[in-house]
């Protein structure tokens, strides 16, 4: 099972009729068991790319090959829960065959057990995010896509949720693609990092992290982060000079 992405161009037309290039050229491939992370500044077209990968947007140049018939789990940037269905119903709706024990374990890991019968309107953003995560994992996806799952949460909560996501990722072998603007999240969760330029997005560099997620020490993480910052800023400096 393999995800191959080769997007050579994507343009948007705004209401005034002007066209904007969002993606200039992004290429990467992921195998099952790998967690790929797209890292780039806000507004560089990462979410657009995810929509293309998920099959929501067909209007682009290039080629995307997804494993045929793969179950997809998608965690949107906003939770996108059905406000008129309870937490449990939201999860069960997309995963009707999930058995009770597995769901219970999933709710346990994400600390949602007490909220099963609540409606999304009664939840905080952090909790709603976790429900969206539970929903994506409940379908036992072969392709898991996460769009900034930790954005706009406070640091402590984001850290906890990141650990929960790591636990869930380690439990299952699938193709995972995470999008974030936060280098720290990228280094702690990803196996392969794809650095993207500001809009229109194109590949800047690719990094592989060999150490397993739970064995990465703070020093190692700091070193990788430094390397990333250098590459991003170095490139920006080069762009300025030209």
């Amino acid at each position, binding site marked *: 099972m393999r995800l191959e992405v080769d997007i050579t161009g994507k343009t948007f037309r705004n209401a005034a009729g002007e066209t904007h290039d969002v993606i200039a050229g992004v290429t990467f491939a992921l195998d099952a068991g790998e967690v790929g992370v797209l890292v780039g500044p806000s507004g560089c077209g990462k979410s657009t790319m995810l*929509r293309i990968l*998920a*099959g*929501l947007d067909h209007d682009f140049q290039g080629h995307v090959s997804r494993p045929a018939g793969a*179950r*997809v*789990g*998608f965690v*949107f940037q*906003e939770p*996108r829960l*059905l*406000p*008129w*269905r309870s937490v449990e119903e939201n999860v069960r*709706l*997309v995963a009707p065959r999930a058995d009770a024990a597995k769901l219970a374990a999933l709710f346990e890991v994400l600390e949602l057990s007490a909220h099963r019968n609540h*409606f999304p*309107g*009664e939840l905080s953003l952090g909790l709603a995010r976790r429900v969206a995560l539970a*929903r994506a994992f409940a*379908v036992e996806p072969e392709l898991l896509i996460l769009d900034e799952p930790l954005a706009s949460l406070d640091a402590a909560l984001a850290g906890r949720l990141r650990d929960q996501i790591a636990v869930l990722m380690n439990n299952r072998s699938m193709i995972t693609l995470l999008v974030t603007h936060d280098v720290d999240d990228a280094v702690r969760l990803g196996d392969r990092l794809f650095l993207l330029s500001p809009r229109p997005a194109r590949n800047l560099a690719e990094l592989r992290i060999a150490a397993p997620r739970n064995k990465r020490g703070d020093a190692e993480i700091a070193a990788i982060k430094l390397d990333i910052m250098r590459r991003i800023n170095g490139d920006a400096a080069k762009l300025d000079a030209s």
Partner: protein
Amino acid sequence: MPRLLSFAALLASWWIGSLLAGDAKLPPPPAVLSAMIAEARSGDLFFHLGMTLARVALAFTLAMSLGAAIGYLMGRVRLADRLGDPWLILLLNLPALVVIVLAYIWAGLTEVAAIAAIAINKLPTAVVTLREGARALDAALDEMATVFALPRWKKFRHVILPQLSPYIAAAARSGLSLVWKIVLVAELLGRPNGVGFEIGVAFQLFDIPRLLAYSLSFAVVVLLIEAVLVQPFEARLSRWRPRAA
């Protein structure tokens, strides 16, 4: 309690009005009540109310289901909207009386003509409301359903229908009040029974207590249906909304 007070005030002003205007123009409440009881004893009251209710139920169901389907289609498919819009505007502004009279001329003084005429009067408002609802559907939830490959029926039931339900409730509410008004006219003009027919007869005989007896019984039925069916239905639909404390 405030409702009860307000009702008592209505009754009192009616009574005072009848004292001022005289029995011939506005009979006092007891006279109307005894007319009501007499009609109820003979069974006429229930028969005519039943006939009217049956017509309302049929025309309402017909107009709601057809109107919801057409409205949804027009809200989702641009071509359908363009094609349907002139018809919609025509129907929306066509006086009820014209529809009823034409229906009786073309289809004869039949039950089918009466129910069709009532339904056609209500149809365009249902279409307009549901079209707005279909236009307001959340694209984000639509994408969610697509990504998670929800089957069509499940998507309709759990994603689309709950979004449309406030619009359906609004169309039902306004449509019902429209149907109540029109059904009596249709009965007056071309049916041998029903509350509208009875009111026509009472009008010709200048039998004001009987006229009021039928009108008020009809109003009571409308209020009952509102309290027993429409309001609980609306409350059920909105139970997921966080309530203000």
